[in-house]
């Protein structure tokens, strides 16, 4: 099963965040709880943990991109 990964809304006011880095590459195995990517917001950089286990199949943004909250940014294949 494939799972879409969304840009998390880290606070109620957050409209968008900057993708600081991907901590995994396409094709990498990702474990639940592992840091998948980092987002820079007004206050800090957040290391976002994956809620899924599987293989990172696709990413739709690059480091430095400003992304709206809830937008799909990657796909993990959980099979």
């Amino acid at each position: 099963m494939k799972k879409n990964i969304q840009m998390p809304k880290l606070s109620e006011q957050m409209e968008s965040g900057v993708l600081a880095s991907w901590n995994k590459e396409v094709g990498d195995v990702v474990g639940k709880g592992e840091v998948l990517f980092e987002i820079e917001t007004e206050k800090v950089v957040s290391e976002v943990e994956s809620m899924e286990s599987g293989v990172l199949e696709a990413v739709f943004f690059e480091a430095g991109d400003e992304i709206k909250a809830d937008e799909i940014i990657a796909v993990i294949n959980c099979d």
Partner: protein
Amino acid sequence: MKKKPEWLKVSYNKEAVEEVSGLMAKLKLNTVCKEANCPNLGECYKKRTATFMILGSTCTRSCRFCNVTSGMVEPVDPKEPQHLAEAVKELDLKHVVITSVTRDDLVDGGAGHFADTIRAVQVLNPGVSIEVLIPDLQGVERHLDIVIAANPDVINHNVETVRELYSEVRPEADYDRSMAVLEYVKKQAPHIKTKTGMMVGLGETDEQVYQVMDDSLKVGCDIFTIGQYLQPSPQHIEVKAYVTPEKFAEYKKIGEAKGFHYIASSPLVRSSYRAEEAMEGGKS
């Protein structure tokens, strides 16, 4: 957006955040973690801990560093003390931190509601230590007496910044009044731990920071916290400097040498961050 130094990194786990957020929503409770957009929310919620914010989520003051909404306040929820006590039980907290928005509109500044909340927690959760982070209650002693009479373990009132920056950062407050609050609490109830905290990175000098420490010690303050100011939005006062972890370590060392029972000093320290540890350390 200003580039963040490498030490300003936190972790975020969606499931953990949603679990605690869900409980708060169910019991109609607010947390300062959420309202202030605290950087430690992810870590604290993952550990199933939070700092409750009573008396609504809208403040009557508009400090330039704070993310809490200012404006028309909500009516006080009489069920809030009981709901909060239930949340403490459900989260199985051993130490609870309760703060509030400032309610200059209420006759007692919200002191009675603080006392009701403390008592509700004590009844439902015997043995749980209670820390209240109070506004200045305009320095009115009879209002402070109401909170003191409820006998929390720690009374915290944050001085927030150095005297010299009050007009810019905290224009509706008064440095001497905040110090007087801490002094009065200690005088009336020496067994209650007193605590204060400040932000750095707003343009203060080291000497001014040490002066706040000296002033706090002079009024008998037991616990002191220092953390980095982080700008919640471009509308808030700007960060003048990202203070290094080494400098925070120096503040801690000097603060301990000056005589605090406990001092927490690092970039992501907030006044209620790991408060249980601070209270244990603050025991004399």
